[in-house]
């Protein structure tokens, strides 16, 4: 009542963005860029693979964007943004030197430590590779801590393949099994064709000792869950990253609810066992 403690006001308000400057822009695809953002003052906060930030474009608004950079590197936040609407368009238009607002990092992370000692299967669809890239960097940098490592990546068209140069580097490694597939092959494509969940049964891993990390369109994740469970991987060891409308990212606006979960704070990365009850239902 009358005597609650007012002295708890924090130094920074979780609703208020910090100022960042764009230090590098890389065009990835026709509609997708990677931004490197450095704080105007102070150190870039630490983050874990799978977490996201709220990026603010002046006057337009905020969007939840996953961190796609290497957690071992300091100094900047790396984000890969696809232009699909007002905010993402303004973010994609940022040029080197331009200012942006940023709040974060928020949310849960991929179990890169929990997966140590086990086989790892990473399943990505389209832009879903962006939030998985920090986990891949971490796992490859600490390769000896893991069993077999497989990366399965699917895109709609060959022109949608993200981080092509890096994929080629990873493919050259003898300690990683990387497979890329496209839904619609064209004359220029000589690789696999077909949807990414279909690669799962062709992949070598020990189902009883595997951690799977899955991110992509919801339908692709649904099929991937089925394929992984079909292969015998426990629901507790299959992780996925959820996407829901987000306004606050701090558990206060209600927008990101998925059943009892607030995707912004209980997710975005969740073990499938936590959401299996409702994942297959429509319009949750």
């Amino acid at each position, binding site marked *: *009542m*009358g*005597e*609650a*403690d*007012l002295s*708890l*006001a*924090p130094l920074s*308000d*979780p*609703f*208020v*963005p910090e*100022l960042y*400057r764009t230090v590098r822009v890389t065009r990835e695809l026709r509609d997708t860029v990677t931004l490197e953002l450095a704080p*105007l003052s102070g150190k870039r906060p630490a983050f874990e693979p799978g977490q996201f930030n709220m990026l*603010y474009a*002046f*006057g*337009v*608004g*905020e969007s939840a964007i996953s961190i796609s950079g290497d957690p071992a590197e300091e100094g900047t936040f790396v984000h890969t943004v696809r232009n*699909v*609407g007002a905010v993402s368009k303004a973010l994609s238009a940022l040029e080197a*030197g*331009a*200012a942006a*607002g940023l709040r974060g990092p928020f949310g849960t992370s991929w179990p890169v430590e929990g997966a140590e000692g086990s086989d790892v299967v990473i399943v990505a669809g389209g832009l879903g590779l962006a939030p998985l890239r920090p986990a891949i960097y971490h796992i490859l940098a600490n390769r000896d801590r893991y069993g077999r490592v497989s990366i399965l990546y699917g895109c709609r068209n060959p022109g949608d393949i993200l981080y092509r140069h890096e994929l080629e580097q990873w493919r050259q490694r003898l300690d990683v099994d990387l497979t890329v597939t496209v839904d619609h092959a064209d004359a220029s494509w000589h690789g696999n064709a077909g949807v990414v969940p279909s690669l799962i049964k062709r992949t070598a891993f020990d189902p009883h000792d595997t951690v799977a990390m899955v991110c992509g369109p919801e339908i692709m994740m649904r099929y991937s869950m089925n394929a992984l469970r079909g292969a015998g991987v426990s629901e507790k060891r299959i992780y996925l990253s959820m*996407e*829901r*409308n987000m*306004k*606050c990212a*701090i*558990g*206060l*606006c*209600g*927008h990101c*609810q998925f*059943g*009892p979960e*607030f995707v912004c*704070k209980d997710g975005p990365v969740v073990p499938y066992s936590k959401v299996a*009850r*409702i994942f297959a*239902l*429509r*319009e*949750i």
Partner: protein
Amino acid sequence: MQDTMTAGSKAVLSSDALQALIVALARQGYTVLGPRVRDGAIVYDEIASSGDLPAGFRDRQDAGRYGLEPREDGAFFGYAAGPQSWKRFLHPPAQTLWSAQKTPDGFTISREEVSVPKLAFLGVRACDLDAIAIQDRVFCEGPYRDEAYATRRANVFIVAVNCSQAGGTCFCVSMQSGPKADTGFDLSLTELLDGTQHRFLAEVGSEAGAALLAELPHEPTTGAHLAAADAIIDNTAKQMGRHLDTDGLKELLQASLSHPRWEEVARRCLSCGNCTMVCPTCFCTTVEDHTSLDGFSATHVKKWDSCFTLDFSYVHGGAVRTSGAARYRQWMTHKLASWIDQFGTPGCVGCGRCITWCPTGIDITEEAAAIRASQCVKEESDGGA
């Protein structure tokens, strides 16, 4: 008689003391907010004297219906919850969070300073007290706190009023939130009317409440006063217009996400969102970004939102909850089930507002009962097979 007041202390006030109470709060710097009649309904607004209170009114409420009628006895608080709750004062419908100003090499951001008026709420019912406690959990106990809410909340003085008259859509007894205010107030009042005398039994809930009561002209209580107050509350509890069976309700609803009743209620629901706006616990917000005409300054404004809008669940490519059935299901299962997972309490206090203010008279208690009934039928037939 000793006159040191502490939490739980009781005293009897004459009905004139209500005016003294308002004056004392104003003297302490509080803006006093209380019930008033406006546009045919009882709303909460600033009051300057006890003459502003809706004395001599009662309300008639039913699904989709609300009306005021005169009452003979001149009771100040002889009505139940009106269309507004106290939510609008603690969690305002629109709030600027911060603003940004263009500079030659980018922009700056400044946090909106929260002005914190000292507010006194006069006439908070038990259900609404519980609703405030629920919003306290939502806004102050997560990993992140809504500082603006916490600051406003810390400056509120609460005078609760125990209900002497249940409304036609009330079910606080089912939700165990009323009709008597047990905690969360500075001072509580029970209005005692016995034909000849008009008095209040006051109960202290905090030190601030004790100090205030000590300032008011008061008399010691007698056994008869206490018995009269208990009888009023017992009587109100028996008048509940609605009932909700909460036994195993969370599990029941969470197991009924594909129930045909959602489609059925969606045929009646207009997705207008009234239920979420009048609900004292619904907390969802959206944000809007505005730029000045010259493009040099921008604001980031938080506004009440409703899970009944299509935009609420929009992600690139379309809304997640396109059907009315999915939106009603989200609302009701949130209120009565997933809220318990999230905050350890249901998001419903049984105030009945969503029932009264639904233009088509959809009744949350009836919807829950319908799902329970068909579930029972199913279990019976399963069992009999």
